[in-house]
């Protein structure tokens, strides 16, 4: 049969046409006229001679060579089948909810071509405002160190094999425990209940940073073991007893926004904040009065406050200065009454109970604090946790499931936990990384990153917040609820399980038909019928024991306070390079933790108090009980003498755990450093271990520690080394609320605290008949250059930053970092003052000295300037966000030889990277020093291999496709998010409507939790930013240089009490 087949290449062949046969018979179909061509004498007469040929060839070779020198072309592959909801170049936003065990808020996730690249506030339907940790968490999604499959005994395995192993592990006879952080998810609670029912697994919650004492105090006073929800927007007077509620303590993502609402001097009144603390915290730096106390005195300060307000209790011994401050604070609290609030940060039951008593006496319950029946955040139970560790060590625990916490790192008794874990029959962790705990467990069942999975979270009693996946899971991971249900013997996929939690009748057929659900997903929450709640009833017992306890507290020569830094928090994102590089808002130090000390103590010990590029910090050894830690000492203005502060959240991955490349120190060449045993060196040191060593001292403090110099040095990378503003009040303007109110009706430029700077002119412009020093013209009226025609024509982008509202939280810094693909440059480069942040926050301390005082005390100018460089011992602080000021008379624009930086007709100083040749003249001539130079090829040079996201094949997916990644040798700086303004203009054009005020915000303005940053079109007379230009607090920094910026600042107003 096969022989009958005929293959043919065309109909001609099939038909055997004569023409075909003729061609087929000839191997070479036609004579090639080579000879004819060569013998054509026209060729001889042709213009292209040998020399021309060589010229052409030379040109072609050169052209080809030059073409080969171009930057490599990165090919992108178009969709074969375009997903319906994705249009290349157009971002999609998904409402979601962030919860990491500490921060809880609604967010919007921006995705581009299916990749989440940015997290921002959900201001329409959500609660809470992003902070730096939430912002930057999108980077963690793409961390290549994440677990990519389930693991059993260190080997990758399949989910079915893992489930079988867990089933066997759960069949043991000892205690079986599910150890989680505070669970906020109804589905998770349901899964835990299912597991308890089927396998007898008990559920214990522990928090990385414990708030146990707060809940315990509430339980003692009201019988409800609940973390109260504070309502700072209702407070007129707030006293913080070492509670950094604006930075790290409690639900900062809610508090910051609330607190700022009462800090607008235009309202005619402001709330007042008194802080009592030992380490300068973000809250302390924003306080109207800040008093330095020692950790052991916190309880007595609370007791003294209580006595001042209620007369209850005996007098306690406190320093005169502290006592005076207590009296001022107490008077304010009494005046505020129910609108007063005391928050205490120490995890110390005694202090918390006194604070609770003060709040109760003020009548704060119901106004500035609310105590729900159901527990909210921070449900961790220190006692249950301690019992668990004891049982583990005793071998009584047969199975342990760990979810969302990392006790081998942060438990009070981490060493005990680790020892106990070895005796646990079977352990499994659902962590994203093979972290300190997971790597010691029998099995690892990695869950999804929060951007990959569905989740339901409940904090409010009227709604259930929803988290939805913004991307398919990158790796072979499985949602914890799904794992728990599989282990409970009721396998169900996480999505169905979640839907069934809220609608028991849900079936897969109804996946798209439930309109309430669809609206909920769109808005980020499901409305539920609120439960009836009863008001809390005080059932508390006598305080006398507690008061006696705090009165009797004694401190040693040095006391230690374990605090947290704003960017690093409890350390769960230690592998996030953007957070590591975000300068601490107070110390302006990156990539390390250290011991904060008072300058006087450091000088007494002979330690280096000037830390800069080539001036490393002195290393000290802090002995706490039987433990010790060696860290560099940092001179912290405002630190209580005789106290030390060490930040928690550092020293992750002490045993080479794969928690991300950026969590480990690198050498100058960019390779990871290794210690003598070949272990990677973590960044900073873990201070959680010191909590256990405090010998019964409650909370995160130790009342008797010793500190000795080791004689070694260690470099610290600080982004700011000059800490005062040297009396330059054209940079920073500030006043008090009383001063403001006295002149609140003044026109802009007239008030004594915001006077327009005038320059003398040789002309009788004040008309007094003579030319003298009184003839002054406003600095802004001088014009050397012709005016840019931006006023009233088209858009003119502008920004106003309220220094009163800005708390320095750095959410804008990380937002800008991510939005604009700013490279992460690492500790060594930051130390060399080469941080690349487009948006930085300048932190200025007040000095006790000025020229006047120098003159009065008979000091010369030079000595006085020397004194002015020193911050005061307990200085007032200003946080001043600083980025390109987009000067209308920009010094940078005139000096660029190739016109790479120019003024747009929208008032924006724009940088053309392609044109830049890198002379850095513009940066030199910038009065604000906001221009950033690409010193190296950050996306490729080895020095940055272990932390710059652009160098990681997966992590580079976080880069914003709207913003180019800059090459080596070019200058860059804030563009006022030109990609956003251009996008908004296009949208408005498509809609055929004028651009609406507020429809476009820069990344920083969008992220700001206190709404300190206003952005908009100055030519739009109804815009918010335009209105700020008429505000009498508005000024331009360095006005007298005549640069006429498009960014303005609003004078800082402090609500300082009358002396």
């Amino acid at each position: 049969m096969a022989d009958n087949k005929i293959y043919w290449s065309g109909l001609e062949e099939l038909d055997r046409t004569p023409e075909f046969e003729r061609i087929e018979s000839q191997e070479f179909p036609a004579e090639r006229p080579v000879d004819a061509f060569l013998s054509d004498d026209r060729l001889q007469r042709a213009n292209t001679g040998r020399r021309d040929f060589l010229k052409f060839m030379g040109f072609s070779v050169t052209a080809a060579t030059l073409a080969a020198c171009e930057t490599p072309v990165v090919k992108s592959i178009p969709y074969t089948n375009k997903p319906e909801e994705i249009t290349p170049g157009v971002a999609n936003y998904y409402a979601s909810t962030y919860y990491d065990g500490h921060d809880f808020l609604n967010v919007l996730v921006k995705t581009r071509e299916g990749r989440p690249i940015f997290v921002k506030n959900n201001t329409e339907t959500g609660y809470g405002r992003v902070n730096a940790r939430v912002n930057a968490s999108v980077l963690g999604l793409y961390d290549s160190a994440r677990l990519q499959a389930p693991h059993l005994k260190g080997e990758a395995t399949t989910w079915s094999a893992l489930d079988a192993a867990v089933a066997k592990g759960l069949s043991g006879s000892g205690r079986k425990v599910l150890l989680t952080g505070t669970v906020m998810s109804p589905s998770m609670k349901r899964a835990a209940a299912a597991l308890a029912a089927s396998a007898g697994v008990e559920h214990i919650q522990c928090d990385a940073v414990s708030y146990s004492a707060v809940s315990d105090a509430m339980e003692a006073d009201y019988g409800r073991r609940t973390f109260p929800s504070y309502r700072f927007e209702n407070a007129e007077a707030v006293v913080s007893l070492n509670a950094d509620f604006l930075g790290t303590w409690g639900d900062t993502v809610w508090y910051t926004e609330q607190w700022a609402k009462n800090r607008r001097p235009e309202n005619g009144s402001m709330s007042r904040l008194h802080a009592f603390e030992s380490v300068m915290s973000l809250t302390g730096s924003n306080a109207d009065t800040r008093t330095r106390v020692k950790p052991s005195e916190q309880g007595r300060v609370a007791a003294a406050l209580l006595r001042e307000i209620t007369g209850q209790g005996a007098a306690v011994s406190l320093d005169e200065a502290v006592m005076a401050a207590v009296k001022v604070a107490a008077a304010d609290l009494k005046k505020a009454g129910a609108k007063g609030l005391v928050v205490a940060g120490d995890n110390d039951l005694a202090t918390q109970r006194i604070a609770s008593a003060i709040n109760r006496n003020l009548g704060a319950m119901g106004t500035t604090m609310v105590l729900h029946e159901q527990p909210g955040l921070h449900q961790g139970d220190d006692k249950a946790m301690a019992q668990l560790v004891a049982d583990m060590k005793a071998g009584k625990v047969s199975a342990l499931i760990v979810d969302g916490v990392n006790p081998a790192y942060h438990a009070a008794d981490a060493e005990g936990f680790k020892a106990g874990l070895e005796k646990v029959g079977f352990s499994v962790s659902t962590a994203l990384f093979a972290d300190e705990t997971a790597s010691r467990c029998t099995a690892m069942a990695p869950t999804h990153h929060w951007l990959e999975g569905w989740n339901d979270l409940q904090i409010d009693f009227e709604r259930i917040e929803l988290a939805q996946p913004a991307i398919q899971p990158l790796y072979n991971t499985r949602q914890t609820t799904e794992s728990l249900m599989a282990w409970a013997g009721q396998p169900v996929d996480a999505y169905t399980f979640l839907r069934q939690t809220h609608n028991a009748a849900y079936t897969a057929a109804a996946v798209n038909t439930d309109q309430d659900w669809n609206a909920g997903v769109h808005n980020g929450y499901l409305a539920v019928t609120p439960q009836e709640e009863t008001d809390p009833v005080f059932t508390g017992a006598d305080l006398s024991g507690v008061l006696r306890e705090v009165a009797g507290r004694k401190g040693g020569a040095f006391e230690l306070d374990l605090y947290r830094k704003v960017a690093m928090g409890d350390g769960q994102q230690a592998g996030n390079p953007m957070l590591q590089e975000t300068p601490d808002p107070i110390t302006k130090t990156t990539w390390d933790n250290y011991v904060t000390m008072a300058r006087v103590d450091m000088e007494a010990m002979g330690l280096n108090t000037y830390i800069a590029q080539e001036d490393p910090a002195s290393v000290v050894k802090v002995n706490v009980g039987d433990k010790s830690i060696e860290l560099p000492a940092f001179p912290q203005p405002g630190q209580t003498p005789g106290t030390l502060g060490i930040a928690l959240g550092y020293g992750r991955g002490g045993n080479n755990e794969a928690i991300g490349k950026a969590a480990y120190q690198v050498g100058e060449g960019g390779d990871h450093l290794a210690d003598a045993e070949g272990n990677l060196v973590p960044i900073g040191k873990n201070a959680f271990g010191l909590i256990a060593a405090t010998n019964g001292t409650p909370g995160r403090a130790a009342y008797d520690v010793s500190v000795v110099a080791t004689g070694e040095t260690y470099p610290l990378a600080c982004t700011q080394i000059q800490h005062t503003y040297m009396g330059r009040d054209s940079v920073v303007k500030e006043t008090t609320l009383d001063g403001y109110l006295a002149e609140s009706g003044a026109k802009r430029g007239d008030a004594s605290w915001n006077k327009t700077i005038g320059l003398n002119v040789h002309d009788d412009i004040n008309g007094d008949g003579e030319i003298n020093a009184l003839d002054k013209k406003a600095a802004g009226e001088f014009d050397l250059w012709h005016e840019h025609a931006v006023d009233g024509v088209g858009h003119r982008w502008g920004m106003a930053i309220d220094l009163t509202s800005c708390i320095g939280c750095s959410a804008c810094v990380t937002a800008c970092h991510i939005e604009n693909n700013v490279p992460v440059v690492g500790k060594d480069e930051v130390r060399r003052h080469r941080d690349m942040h487009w948006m930085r926050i300048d932190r200025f301390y007040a000095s006790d000295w000025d020229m006047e005082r120098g003159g009065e005390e008979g000091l010369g100018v030079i000595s006085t300037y020397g004194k002015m460089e020193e911050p005061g011992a307990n200085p007032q602080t200003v946080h001043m966000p600083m980025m390109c000021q987009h000067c209308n008379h920009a010094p940078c624009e005139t000096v660029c030889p190739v016109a790479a930086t120019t003024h747009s007709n929208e008032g924006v100083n724009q940088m053309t990277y392609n044109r830049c040749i890198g002379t850095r003249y513009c940066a030199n001539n910038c009065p604000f020093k906001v221009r950033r130079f690409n010193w190296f090829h950050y996306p490729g040079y080895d020095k940055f291999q272990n932390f710059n996201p652009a160098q990681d094949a997966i992590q580079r997916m976080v880069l914003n496709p709207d913003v180019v990644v800059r090459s080596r040798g070019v200058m860059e700086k804030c563009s006022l998010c030109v990609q956003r303004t251009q996008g908004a203009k296009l949208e408005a054009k498509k809609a055929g409507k004028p651009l609406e005020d507020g429809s476009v915000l820069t990344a920083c303005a969008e992220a700001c939790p206190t709404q300190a940053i206003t952005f908009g079109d100055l030519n739009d007379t109804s815009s918010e930013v335009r209105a700020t230009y008429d505000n009498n607090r508005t000024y331009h920094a360095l006005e007298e240089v005549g640069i006429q910026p498009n960014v303005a600042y609003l004078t800082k107003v402090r609500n300082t009490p009358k002396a």
Partner: protein
Amino acid sequence: MQQEAAIREPLILGNKSYKDITDDVVGPIQGAAPMGWKVMITISSIIAFYGVGCILYLIGTGIGVWGLNKTVGWAWDITNFVWWVGIGHAGTLISAVLLLFRQKWRMAINRSAEAMTIFAVIMAAVFPGIHMGRIWVSYWVLPLPNQFGSLWVNFNSPLLWDVFAISTYFSVSLVFWYIGLIPDFATIRDRMTKPLQKKIYSVLSFGWSGRAKHWTRFEEVSLVLAGIATPLVFSVHSIVSMDFATSVIPGWHTTIFPPYFVSGAVFSGFAMVQTLLLIMRKTMKLEAYIHTKHVEYMNIVIIVTGSIVGVAYLTELFISWYSGVEYESYAFINRFSGPYSASYWAMMTCNVISPQLFWFKKIRRSLVATFALSIVVNIGMWFERYVIIVTSLHRDFDPSSWGEFHATSIDVGIFIGTLGIFFTLFLLFARFFPVLALNELKSILKSSGEEHKRVQSEGKSNH
């Protein structure tokens, strides 16, 4: 022939004939290279190669290998640039300005001073090139027709003026120098015996025949070029100073800079000429032509320009106080009392105090003291530029950005490397080029020669 008073010190010592002059200058070119020359060129070329290596590393890796940062965007790079441009000034001043003023003593030194100018300007030109982040597109500073949407340069930028100033200065200096060399090359050509050498020098001498017509044209061209070069002496460093003067940075933004920079440039240029010539006259046995009188003349120029520079420093300080501008006065207080005060006081000592020693005739006429002080002055002038650039930048308007600058080994390596390249070029010049303008010297032998003067004073004038 021009007559000169007999009591004037002779410019050419000993009883030299025209042939002696030729022998003294051309002899070393014909002979084998002396050992000392070989040793020196080996050392300097090793340093030069090290410098080139550092430059290649810089270009390959990024400007980050220097110690610059977000606050201090220029430091050693532009310091070296200004320093080298300044050094170049003496050559042009000697050959052009002194020619116009008919100063005969310049004839012994103008050739090497001009060579120094050329090499110094080449070294200076290295720095604006390599300090760019993207040197491969450095040609964008030239106003060339292009297809980038016809992008033009920014004529407001002093850096662009620099490009024009330096390139004009370099080309005029080169042409001037070369024109002067032509008759001397012809003399060498005529004495060369080896065909290759003869060929090379005959090409270099452009067919010079020594006819009266050639000499007339030579004189005319020299005068014209001197006329062109003279304003350049003042314009180049004025324009370089505008890199700073037109900025807004306190410590840079001052109108005194142009004259201050020009006098500083002449000051440092003469110091460098002293350094080079004092070595050269010794090693090449030119004591008869370059002697105490020449050194003394140059030292007088150094006193004058050094004093102008000193006055400028004091004026700056006074104005910073008198202006009442907070930033300006702080910038200067910081200069002499801040973290970089050591540089300031080094500058003050080297540039203001040390040249005043030349008021003493003994020191002014001492070759050893002159040599030592010439080096001191050059160190001082380097520090002057460093002080202006680094101390002004490191603490300007916004205290939050105040920073520090610390030089890296590459900063130092490239500077040392340019010294190596400079000396290598100068040594090659000394070996193969006529180091004295021999034909010009011959023109004053009969008026300023020692023997002539002796005869003249004995009343036996040969006229």
